[in-house]
C-alpha cells in the first residue's frame, strides 16, 4: 500500500474471500433447501423415507437444520461480515492466510456434517448434533474467524465502530461461549460421546444454547448485515442511530435469558421457566427496535419497493423479523405455550423466521453483492422479481399451513368431553387431520426452492457475463485520531476491547443466573428420589434411539396438564431423567409422547411397530426401521460406555462396568426368547431391534416408586 500523505492511503480490499463465501452459500443453500423439501415430503408421504437407513427422516432432519443454519446462513454471514467490515473499518482483512483457513475449514466442517449425520453419528441435541471431533474443529475455526475479525478491528483506519460491527462482535463472542459450554462432552469412541450434563441440567444448557443459536447466529449477525446493506441499497441513512444503541444493548442482555421458554410446563424448576417467560416477553421491545429502525430507514425510498428486487427482499425480510419476534414472545407465555409446544405451530414460527427473515436477507444481500463484486450488471431484474414472489408465496404457504396445523393439534390434544375424557384419545386422529397441511407445507418448500434456483441461474448468468476481475485499489483516509478524548457511547464505539468485554458481560449475566443454580441438581430432587440407571442393553437401545433421531418426532416429557395426564400418565419428574446423558425430552410430537410407554405394549408389538408401523397403526406416517432387525448390536463397546457414564456420576458398580457386554447379551437372549414365545421370529438376540425394545420397555419404569 502506498501512502500519499500520512492520512491518505491506497489499499486493496480482499474481495476474493467474499466471493468464495458467496459461492459456498449458493452451493449449500441448495443442499439445505433440497434436504428441507425431502423431509417435508417424508412427513406428508412416509414412503419418501425410501426404507433407507441413511435417508430416513430422523437422519435427514439434522442434516437439513445444520445445513440451513451453519452452511447456508453461516457462509452468507461470513461473506457479508468480511465484505462490510473491510469497508466500515477502511482496512483489508487482518490475514489472507487466516481468511483461507477459515473458509476451507468451515467447508470441511460442513462436509463432515453431511457425511456423519446421515450415518447416524449424532449427540441427540438439536442444532448441536455434530460429534466431538467436529465440535473441536468448529471451535478452532471459530477462533480463526475471531482472530481475523478482531485483528481487522485492531488495524482499522476508522476509529468509531458502526452499529453493524457491534452486532458482529456480539455474534462472535456469544457463539463461542454457547458452543464451548454446550459441547462439554466425554468421548467414548472416535464418533460417540456423552454430554457431561444430564436431565434438567442438560435441558437447561441445551435450550440456553438452542435459543441463543437463534439469537446470536440467526439474529444478531443478520441485524448487523441489515444495518449495512439496507442503507446501502436504499441510499438512505439508518432511521435512528440512538435507537440502534438502545436496542443493541437491550437485545444482547435480554436474549440470553430466553432459553427456558422451550421448557415451559416441563420438569425444569419453576423459577427458571418464569425467568425464561418474562425475559422472552421483554425481548419483544428491543427486537422491534431493530425492525422499526430497518423499515423506517426506507422513509423517502419506499418507491424502490416497486422497482428494486433488493429492496423487496430486505423490506420483506425485516417484516418477517417483526412477525417472528412478536410471535416468539407470544408463544413464550405459559398458557399459549400449553397449546403451541410440541406442535407444528413452532415449526411454522421457526420457518417464518428462517425463510422470511434469514433467507430473504441473504437473497437481497447476494443480489446486491454479486454484480458489484464481479463489476457487472445483474443479468435479469425480472428473474430476481420472479424469485421474490415465488419465495414469498412459498414462505406464506409454509407458515400458514404450519400455524393452522399446530393450533389444530394443540387444541385436539387438549379437547375433553363434558364427562372429563379425551375427545380424541387416539393420537393418530390428530396426525390424519393435519396431513393435508403437510402437503401444503411441502408445496411451500418446493416453491421456495424453485425461487432459489431462479436466483442461482440469474447469478450464474451474471457472473458468466462479467469481465475478467482485476483487483481495484481504494483510496482511504485514516481518521483514527487516537489522542482525542471522547465520552459516553461515542467513546465506547472507539474502544474495541472495552466494548467487547461489556458485550461479554451482558451475555454472561443471564447465563450464570440461569445455569449455575441448575447445576446443583440435588436441590430439585426429593430426598427419597431413587432412580435405577439404564441396564447395558437399555443403554445400547437408547443410543440407537438417538442415532435414528427418534427424539425429533417423539417427546419424553409429560406436562402437568389434565389432558396430558389422561393421555400419557403422571407428569414427568426431574429425577426420572437424572441419569440421561443427553436428555431426550424432545421438542416435537409428530408421534405420541413416550415417557411412560414402558410395559404398555408387549415386546412383539414393538418389534412389529418398529419394522412396519402400519401393521399396528394403519394410518401411521412413521418410517419403517427394517435395518434394526438385520444390524448387529455392538456389545463390546458397552464396557467403555458404562465406564464413561460412571465417571460422570451414574451409579454403576465396577462389576456392571466390567461385565456390561455379558449382562447385555443375557438380557438380549431373554427378550429374544420372549419375542419367539409371542409368535415372532427366532434368532434376534444379537440384533439392534432387541436393544431398542429393551430401551422402550424401560421408559417410565426406572423410578423406584413409579408415579401413578
Amino acid at each position, binding site marked *: 500500500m502506498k501512502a500519499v500523505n500520512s492520512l491518505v492511503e491506497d489499499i486493496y480490499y480482499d474481495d476474493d474471500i467474499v466471493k468464495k463465501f458467496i459461492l459456498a452459500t449458493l452451493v449449500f443453500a441448495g443442499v439445505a433447501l433440497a434436504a428441507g423439501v425431502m423431509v417435508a415430503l417424508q412427513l406428508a408421504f412416509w414412503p419418501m423415507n425410501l426404507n433407507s437407513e441413511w435417508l430416513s427422516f430422523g437422519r435427514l432432519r439434522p442434516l437439513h437444520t445444520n445445513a440451513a443454519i451453519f452452511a447456508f446462513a453461516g457462509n452468507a454471514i461470513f461473506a457479508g461480515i468480511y465484505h462490510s467490515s473491510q469497508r466500515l473499518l477502511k482496512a483489508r482483512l487482518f490475514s489472507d492466510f487466516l481468511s483461507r483457513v477459515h473458509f476451507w475449514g468451515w467447508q470441511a466442517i460442513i462436509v463432515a456434517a453431511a457425511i456423519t449425520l446421515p450415518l447416524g453419528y449424532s449427540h441427540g441435541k438439536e442444532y448441536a448434533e455434530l460429534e466431538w471431533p467436529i465440535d473441536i474443529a468448529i471451535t478452532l475455526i471459530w477462533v480463526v474467524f475471531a482472530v481475523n475479525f478482531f485483528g481487522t478491528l485492531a488495524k482499522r483506519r476508522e476509529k468509531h465502530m*458502526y452499529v453493524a460491527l457491534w452486532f458482529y462482535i456480539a455474534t462472535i463472542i456469544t457463539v463461542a461461549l454457547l458452543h464451548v459450554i454446550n459441547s462439554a462432552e466425554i468421548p467414548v469412541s472416535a464418533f460417540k460421546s456423552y454430554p457431561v450434563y444430564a436431565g434438567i441440567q442438560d435441558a437447561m444448557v441445551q435450550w440456553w444454547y438452542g435459543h441463543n443459536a437463534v439469537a446470536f447466529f440467526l439474529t444478531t449477525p443478520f441485524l448487523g448485515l441489515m444495518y449495512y446493506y439496507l442503507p446501502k441499497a436504499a441510499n438512505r*441513512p439508518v432511521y435512528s442511530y*440512538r435507537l440502534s444503541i438502545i436496542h443493541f444493548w437491550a437485545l444482547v442482555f435480554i436474549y440470553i435469558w430466553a432459553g427456558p421458554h422451550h421448557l415451559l410446563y416441563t420438569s425444569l424448576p419453576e423459577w427458571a421457566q418464569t425467568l425464561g417467560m418474562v425475559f422472552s416477553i421483554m425481548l419483544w421491545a428491543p427486537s422491534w427496535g431493530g425492525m422499526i429502525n430497518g423499515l423506517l430507514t426506507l422513509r423517502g425510498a419506499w418507491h424502490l419497493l416497486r422497482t428494486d428486487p433488493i429492496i423487496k427482499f430486505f423490506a420483506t425480510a425485516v417484516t418477517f423479523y417483526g412477525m417472528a419476534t412478536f410471535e416468539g414472545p407470544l408463544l413464550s407465555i405459559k398458557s399459549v405455550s400449553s397449546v403451541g409446544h410440541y406442535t407444528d405451530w413452532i415449526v411454522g414460527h421457526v420457518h417464518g423466521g428462517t425463510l422470511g427473515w434469514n433467507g430473504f436477507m441473504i437473497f437481497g444481500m447476494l443480489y446486491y453483492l454479486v454484480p458489484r463484486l464481479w463489476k457487472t450488471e445483474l443479468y435479469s431484474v425480472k428473474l430476481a422479481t420472479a424469485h421474490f414472489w415465488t419465495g414469498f408465496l412459498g414462505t406464506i404457504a409454509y407458515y400458514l399451513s404450519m400455524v393452522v396445523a399446530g393450533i389444530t393439534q394443540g387444541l385436539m390434544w387438549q379437547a375433553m368431553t363434558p364427562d372429563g375424557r379425551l375427545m380424541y384419545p387416539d393420537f393418530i386422529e390428530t396426525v390424519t387431520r393435519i396431513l393435508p397441511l403437510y402437503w401444503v407445507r411441502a408445496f411451500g418448500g418446493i416453491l421456495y426452492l424453485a425461487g432459489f434456483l431462479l436466483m442461482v441461474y440469474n447469478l450464474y448468468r451474471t457472473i458468466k457475463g462479467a469481465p475478467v476481475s482485476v483487483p481495484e485499489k*481504494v*483510496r482511504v483516509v485514516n481518521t483514527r485520531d487516537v489522542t482525542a478524548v471522547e465520552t*459516553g*457511547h*461515542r467513546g465506547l464505539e472507539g474502544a474495541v476491547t472495552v466494548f467487547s468485554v461489556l458485550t461479554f458481560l451482558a451475555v454472561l*449475566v443471564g447465563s450464570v443466573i440461569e445455569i449455575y443454580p441448575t447445576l446443583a441438581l440435588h436441590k430439585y430432587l426429593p430426598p427419597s428420589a431413587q432412580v435405577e440407571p439404564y441396564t447395558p442393553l437399555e443403554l445400547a437401545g437408547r443410543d440407537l434411539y438417538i442415532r435414528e433421531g427418534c427424539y425429533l418426532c417423539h417427546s419424553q416429557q409429560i406436562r402437568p396438564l389434565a389432558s396430558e395426564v389422561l393421555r400419557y400418565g403422571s407428569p414427568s419428574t426431574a429425577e426420572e431423567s437424572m441419569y440421561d446423558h443427553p436428555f431426550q425430552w424432545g421438542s416435537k410430537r409428530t408421534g405420541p409422547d413416550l415417557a411412560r410407554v414402558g410395559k404398555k405394549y408387549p415386546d412383539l408389538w414393538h418389534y412389529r411397530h418398529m419394522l412396519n408401523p402400519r401393521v399396528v397403526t394403519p394410518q401411521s406416517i412413521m418410517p419403517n426401521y427394517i435395518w434394526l432387525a438385520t444390524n448387529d448390536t455392538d456389545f463390546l463397546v458397552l464396557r467403555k460406555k458404562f465406564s464413561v457414564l460412571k465417571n460422570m456420576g451414574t451409579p454403576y458398580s465396577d462389576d456392571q462396568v466390567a461385565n456390561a457386554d455379558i449382562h447385555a447379551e443375557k438380557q438380549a437372549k431373554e427378550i429374544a426368547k420372549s419375542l419367539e414365545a409371542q409368535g415372532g421370529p427366532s434368532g434376534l438376540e444379537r440384533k439392534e431391534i432387541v436393544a431398542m425394545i429393551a430401551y422402550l420397555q424401560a421408559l417410565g419404569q426406572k423410578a423406584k416408586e413409579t408415579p401413578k
Partner: protein
Amino acid sequence: MISEGLRHFTEIPLSIVGMLLFIVTFITVTIWSFLSRQDLHEMAQMPLHEEEISHE
C-alpha cells in the same frame, strides 16, 4: 389474578435480581445514548460513503 400470577414466581430473589439488572442496564444505556446530534448523524452516514477508486 395477581396472586395467581405471583404463584409462578417461586424463586423471588433471583427474579428480582434479574429484573433489577435489566432496569439498571436499560436506564444506563438510555442515558448514555444521549450523544450530540452531530455524532449520531455522522455515524448513521457511515455505510453511505462511496469507495474512492485510486487511479495511481
